[in-house]
């Protein structure tokens, strides 16, 4: 066993320990530690990815040297490595970009708590990505929930508290359903590790027994994770949650946490149940329908907003809909598209939340459209960031959103029954996206009402970008670059996703 194979375990443990250590550190040191931990994780994940790509196969890592039926396992393949790498990269950028806002939005005494939560979040995300054990997954789902809830409520405004309680309630519902799904699965198969469970499921399916329990398992597990990732119609906790957290938290929650659950769902489908049994259960059609509905209604709700934060949050509802639509297509191509969109949306949403925060800063910390008028001139970098993010959401070619759209559309072509629906949904959704993003965008570059921000310089003034923290600059620039890379050089990533998914089953 090569040393690299230990890295997944190391990164989970590293994140967790840095969280524990942070609890005795002051805010600033906790921050440094946290950033270092995420950075190291990123490097480790990259190594894992490289290893898997080179060897061309996945491997299973026993925790504590207990063999299969009893022990706890980690499994790493190309897709896991890639996901871990991109997740930690996005997280790193979100944290770096939001450092200054974390300082202002979170009370000084709670700074280290914030970074503890970040560390826990990272560790639980990585665990969700790597684990090969369903119950471990459940535990980390709960840790993730708690960390997420903490991240939301840390600003301690009334809004964020209620948002947190809603988040908690919905998450509990979701985890409860997921847990009952696990129990049923254990009941039926006697297994909790993914690979043996899959074998057992395969046998059961062959024997033709337990059809109804299997259906219930698929349904309950899917619904549980769908609730947690905010699929329409279980989305009503999303807007407040994403809208009223700090930019870092919003970026992470929207870009990564919900995606972690979706990733788990994909694993659940591929690694536990076989794709065939999933297809047979028709759960895909349900997810497809709700995904499409989410795309439409999320966007429609976003159009109705006048508050930028909520608008971006509702846009997430729509984007989650895209992902579920891809999963619901029930084809490998659809799955590839969905996974790609997980990354693409993660990167884009992080960019949007961060740069939007940069725009609020120069608009007297107000978030309504009117206040943001002309802020594109007052903070040029944030304006450009928002521009790129919006365009990517709208599916402008050369940006990541375009490739997602392309993948969704081409995968739709391969499933005749859902082709037309998907295509029309994509087109309509693009229009809706354009409506709310570009409405805001034109506002950003329209001079503010005269005298509104005299100190912040007029529409043509040279204040642009001054006062942006270095971290913010780096993060926004990197995310822009990231978007461009995903848009222009997507081929290797898509190939990696394809390989990774192939390794799953």
């Amino acid at each position, binding site marked *: 066993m090569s040393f690299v194979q230990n890295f997944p375990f190391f990164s989970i443990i590293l994140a967790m320990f840095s969280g524990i250590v942070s609890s005795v550190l002051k805010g600033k040191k906790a921050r440094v530690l946290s950033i270092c931990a995420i950075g190291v994780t990123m490097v480790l994940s990259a190594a894992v990815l490289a290893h898997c790509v080179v060897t061309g196969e996945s491997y299973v890592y026993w925790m504590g040297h207990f063999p299969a039926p009893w022990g706890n396992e980690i499994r790493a393949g190309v897709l896991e490595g890639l996901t871990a790498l991109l997740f930690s990269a996005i997280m790193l950028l979100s944290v770096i970009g939001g450092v200054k806002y974390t300082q202002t939005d979170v009370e000084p005494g709670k700074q280290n708590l914030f970074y503890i939560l970040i560390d826990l979040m990272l560790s639980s995300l990585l665990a969700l990505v790597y684990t090969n054990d369903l119950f471990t997954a459940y535990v980390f789902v709960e840790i993730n929930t708690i960390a997420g809830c903490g991240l939301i409520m840390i600003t301690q405004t009334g809004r964020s508290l209620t948002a947190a309680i809603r988040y908690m309630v919905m998450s509990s519902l979701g985890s409860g359903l997921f847990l009952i799904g696990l129990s049923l699965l254990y009941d039926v198969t006697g297994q909790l590790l993914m690979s043996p469970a899959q074998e057992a499921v395969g046998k059961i399916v062959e024997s033709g027994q337990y059809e109804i329990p299997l259906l219930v398992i698929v349904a309950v597990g899917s619904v549980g994770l769908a609730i947690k990732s905010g699929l329409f119609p279980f989305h009503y906790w999303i807007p407040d949650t994403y809208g009223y957290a700090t930019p870092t938290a919003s970026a992470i929650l929207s870009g990564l946490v919900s995606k972690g659950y979706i990733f788990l769902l994909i694993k659940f489908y591929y690694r536990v149940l076989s794709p065939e049994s999933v297809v047979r259960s028709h759960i895909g059609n349900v997810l497809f329908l709700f995904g499409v509905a989410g795309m439409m209604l999320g966007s429609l709700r976003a159009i109705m907003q006048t508050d930028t934060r909520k608008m971006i949050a509702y846009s997430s509802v729509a984007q989650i809909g895209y992902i579920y639509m891809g999963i619901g297509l029930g084809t490998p191509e659809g799955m590839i598209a969905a996974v790609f969109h997980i990354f693409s949306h993660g990167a884009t949403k992080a960019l949007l939340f961060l740069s939007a925060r940069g725009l609020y800063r120069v608009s007297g910390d107000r978030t309504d459209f009117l206040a943001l008028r002309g802020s594109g001139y007052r903070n040029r970098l944030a304006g450009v960031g928002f521009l790129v993010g919006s*365009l990517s959401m*709208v*599916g*402008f*070619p*050369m940006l990541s959103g375009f*490739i997602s*759209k*392309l993948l969704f*559309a*081409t995968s*739709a*072509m391969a499933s005749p029954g859902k082709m*037309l629906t998907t*295509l*029309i949904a*994509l*087109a*309509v959704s*693009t*229009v809706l996206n*354009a*409506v709310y993003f*570009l*409405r805001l965008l*034109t*506002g950003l*570059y*329209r*001079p503010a009402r005269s005298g509104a921000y005299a100190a912040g310089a007029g*529409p*043509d003034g*040279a204040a642009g970008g001054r006062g942006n923290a270095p971290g913010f600059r780096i993060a926004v620039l990197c995310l822009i670059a990231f978007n461009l890379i995903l848009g*222009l050089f*997507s*081929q290797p990533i*898509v190939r990696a996703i394809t390989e990774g998914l192939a390794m799953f089953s």
Partner: protein
Amino acid sequence: MGGILLAGPVFLPIFTGLLLFLLQPWITTPRRRSLVRGALLLLVLGNSLWMGALIAICGGESPPQVLFRLYGELTVMFRLDRMGSVFAGLVSFLWPLATLYAFSYMEKEERRPTFFGFYTISFGVTLGVALAGNLVTMYLFYEMLTFATFPLVMHPMTSEAARATRRYLYYSIGGAAFAFLGLIYVLTYSATGTTAFVPGGMLNAAAGGKDLTLLLYVLAFFGFGVKAALFPFHGWLPRATVAPTPVTALLHAVAVVKSGAFAVLRLTYFSFGAALLRGTWAQWVVMGAALVTIVYASTMAVREVHWKRRLAYSTISNLSYILFGASLMTPAGLAAALAHLIVHAIMKICAFFCAGAVQTQTGKIYVTELDGLGRRMPATFGCFTVAALSLMGIPPFAGFLSKWSLCTAALSAASDAGGAAQPVVGVAVILYSALMTGIYMLSVSVRAFFPWRAAALPDRRDPDWRMLLPLLLFAGLLLALGLCGQPLLAALAEIGKEAG
């Protein structure tokens, strides 16, 4: 090397425009301003010459040049073919003149560097549409065009401008979203495996279902048609006239809207293939849409009293002439559509420039305010009248030629299709529209030259040479083309034959 040569005219203006943004803080003195202005004009002119030289050297056929690979079979590829040459040549000819005009027009406006930056970028992007060698590249530049031009509509920064901009954006992007579906369909079922344009189309007809193919074609047609202001997606164009006149004239009468029409031509004749579509319900649907647009827009133009908006409605109806030509699905139809694409560009830009000249000289924007101005600005209104006559299709002006080709193409398409009534209705509609054109264009000229009361003529003069030169040039060109348009038509007919 060849790739750079071919891509140069596309990217040079784009970089020039970006450079202009960077230079913005430096342009402080009048001296620097005129320096930048001169350099810009020189660059635009040089770019046009470059393009012209390319067309001349390649003779309308160049090997494909792949710039980079976007994803899978989606490559950004340039290729100069004859149809592309037509559009590229047209745009390259008009742009320097329009820039010259814009210098004079924008004299008193604010934010000039931004304006000219985007104006120049649009040049490159439009050439990108013209030079695109496959559907993907065209789609890419089509989208870019939206984003390069919306700041120009925004330029006045009034709330009216913002509303117009938003509408423009929604419509354009919505259209592109549906065009995207066509792109995907072509990509999936292309017989060559790529989306590279092939005269006569490259769709593997048997692969997708027949009705599905047609449905996707109709969707894509309407998608690209949005930029060509196809009813009911025309609403953005009249509003977009809040933009400064050089924008309305060049972009919303030529570059942007013609890109839409050009894209439709590419889609119809070089991707789906006219033979596949001929005689199907899809053909009648798109033709019907074009005809409804013509009737609707020319009627609306008569009702509109805002001068530029009236011209915009006229543009809408004339663009649908092109789309009607495209929807004939015959070689002659394509040739006629291209002819109208060229001719309409010249006459509409001429008309808009006149409106702009009047606006700068007198501030009048409503048709009802123009009484007697013709006597004070004879050159301007003379050119306008020439454009009006040409637009009506009065011989010997160029408009007649294109209308002639269009109608004869329609009639022969009708007889080819076994006496189908739709193209004949089309001819009738075009003639109705010509009458409406007469009403809405000539009533302006009559009003200007023969005011009801002789008293109180405003003391105004024709604009300076920078505005006047393009005007006179265009008017002269309309006459010259009308008289000796034969070689052009022959060349277009060749293109049609190749692709039909």
